[in-house]
């Protein structure tokens, strides 16, 4: 809460959010998370709340292309940054390769963790392409892009829980789609 100079406590702020290439102007409770803002203020309910606590990954979105937990991000702190949610992954009615692979290979069951898995996978592939090592990367030298093995994917995706435990199909879908995703960018 901030004092507005007239001795009143301001609990709301008007902010600009850029989500899936669309600009929004919304007044939000200062306590509102980015997760609740995209869901309840923008009506983009694809992003899910599994714990509201940074422990499950269901709320993963891309902020400036990097994966973040939207439940741990205040909406006011995302002002001005480009946000991508699951609704923004597909282009013009076409599923993007990773989405198509999830459907075809059954990379989900209830589908509740899926928006987070998808956003996380897209962010993860970008991190990998940029050469970032993970805890299981044997040679972490900056000149080498680690090979994208199943082990690498599992390690890098471990922040996204799936209680239906579609894990093996998720890994298969990511691996299979990774080459086409790189092209799709």
């Amino acid at each position: 809460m901030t004092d507005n100079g007239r001795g009143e406590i301001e609990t709301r702020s008007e902010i600009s959010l850029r989500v899936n290439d669309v600009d929004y102007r919304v007044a939000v409770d200062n306590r509102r998370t980015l997760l609740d803002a995209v869901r309840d203020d923008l009506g983009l309910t694809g992003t899910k709340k599994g714990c509201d606590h940074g422990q499950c990954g269901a709320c993963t979105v891309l902020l400036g292309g990097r994966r973040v937990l939207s439940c741990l991000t205040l909406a006011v702190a995302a002002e001005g940054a480009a946000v991508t949610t699951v609704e923004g992954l597909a282009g013009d009615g076409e599923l993007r390769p990773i989405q198509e692979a999830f459907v075809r290979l059954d990379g989900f069951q209830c589908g509740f963790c899926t928006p987070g898995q998808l956003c996380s996978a897209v962010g993860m592939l970008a991190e990998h392409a940029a050469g970032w090592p993970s805890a299981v990367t044997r040679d972490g030298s900056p000149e080498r892009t680690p090979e994208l093995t199943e082990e690498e994917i599992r390690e890098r995706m471990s922040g996204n829980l799936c209680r239906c435990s579609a894990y093996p199909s998720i890994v298969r879908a990511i691996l299979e789609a990774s080459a086409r995703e790189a092209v799709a960018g």
Partner: protein
Amino acid sequence: MNPDGITAAVGESRPRIEGRLKVTGAARYTADVPVAGLAHGWVVTATVSRGRIRDIDAGEALAQPGVLGVLDHRNARRLNPDAGQYFGPDRSLPLLQDEVVAYAGRPIALVVAETPEQARAAAATVRVTYDAEPHDIEFSLAHPAARPASTLFGPEADTGDLEAELAASALVVDEVYHTPEENHSAMEPHVATAWWQDGHLHALDSDQGPFGISQVMASLFLIDPERAHIRAEHVGGGFGGKTVCGPQLILAAMAAEHFGRPVRVALTRRQVFLATGSRPPTEQRVRIGADADGRFRAVHHHAAFALSPLAEYIEWCTEQARTLYAAPAIRTELTAVPLDLLPPCSMRGPGATPGSFAFESAVDEVAERLGIDPLRLRLLNQPEVGPVSGRPFSSRRLVACLQEGARRFGWAQRDPRPRVRREGDLLVGTGVAAVAFIAGVFPSSATITAETDGTFSVRIGATDIGTGARTALIAVAADALGVGVERIRMHIGDSDLGMAAGAGGSRGTTSCAFAIVETAKALREKLAGATTPVTASVDTTPLINWRPDEDRYTYSAVFAEVTVDVATGEVRVRRLLGMFAVGRVINPLLARSQLIGGMIGGLSMALHEEGVRDPVTGRLVTADFAGYHISAHADVPGIEADFVADYEPQDPSGFNGLGEIGNAGVAAAIANAVWHATGTRHRTLPISLGRVVESVAAQDRPQAVGVA
């Protein structure tokens, strides 16, 4: 059979019909559906395990911006104290009725405000004082309050002369096994939005069977069952945890009535742990007597589980003992221990999952002590007919599961000696377990309309909580009607669609498939020469044979390879193979996903999951995903699940359920593999780092080092 020249849909792998909606974020789960004029409820839970509420001071909360009010036992409407569900009256259902607190985590107030932030902030200011009373959460089989469990599932087994057969046995294994309290942890927390209109209750609820839930709500609120309308279109997992009428729905309905507007109650993750039922802890004593050649003479499985005095419940751990192996004497005993806990709730593979851990570990101990290959021991003791029932099996392909699994896993090459395979710091071992899981159907009704445009509208109160029910039932309907799947319009997830089995007991899809097949039959008779639209409805209640003369089960054999890090105590599963006999498979792609998911649930149970309560306060201390670890990507190796050819004669289409059998057996296979790796038996789950390190350290003293 096939007038359209369409190939059969059943048996084909097809992606989920709602797949596109789920990967684009368009599938609407309960909390995603906008409702005009919505208010938000925030639950306040009890912090003592037993006692009385002295006062709830909501003064500060009521003064906060946006707060509409606070519901507690002093102003909430009265509910029917006798309402109940599957196991009879459940006294935990009527919330906010009095000042009594029977368990920690019980919802005792609901703060309702315009926004969730306001409700949450206000709820944090509610001051509750209690007159605490001493509580008892100390579970054990020997607890003085222990009593025989309900025999709703049938009488205990007691065949032959158990003590005489034990006395005549060359070897008797007599061991005690423990499994902890475990939480379903569906990724979608329980949430409901409710409103009232003209005396009718409408609600969107995250549950596993809206029809059954609508009946409970009607009873609880004392309204005509026709006036309770519950919808659950897309549900983010359940695993049993959403089979009971949840506090989110009861509180949302109470608040919606009180404040005269729609109210959403979303449980936080922590509240899901605290205020919704878990799998109860178990303590199980297994005695198996065998001849020197491995033939069983006596099987005795005595299992105890914790429950609440507020509601009956059965964790039927002893099912394996009565059907898996032949023995002249078999006795089962099931003991219930009432404690100051919330009522437990069936969790994936109830009974069979903890029960098979104990039982199939004990069977492995027989093999170990007699020096017999554990696979051979299991094959040696196969029964011709139900060992207790004396009835033939309608289909029993367990031997095929064991043999085919052994072949694929490479079991024949296995060195039986424990603690002889080392790879650096890792000890390596393999293990096996078998499972029988009871199968059947519950009554359901379906309605099918042949529309004028050539499509068929199928209406059935089924739910798809991730099982693939929607997709599977479309295939079943298409084949039963003899048309292509694209002509089927499937409507599920709404109590107004009529009485139907929920997604539970491994019976949701089988029960609904049965109703659809019978309805399709009736429709095809009516259709001949008639002009569309034509509608047929069938209720399977009178068609179900409740006393079949054959035992109906599904079966599995699970094989595991583990590595155990001697330095850290970490157990990792390297390979997991499950072979399943589950009747005719409707959609192999989705069925395999469900079984693999179940197997990972079993892996998680074996190695990670443990609900821990503070003995002083009785409160659950592991009420989030940091304290309660469920398997993550990095815990899960490549897993294989496959089917042996099977057909269930008791079902018109040859189907059986497979929602739960994947979980059962895995913990025993892993525990048996850990023994093979380390030479140490783990009789308490989970097989966590600390437990392994202690036992490995004991073995690693110089005189005890195994052959490297």
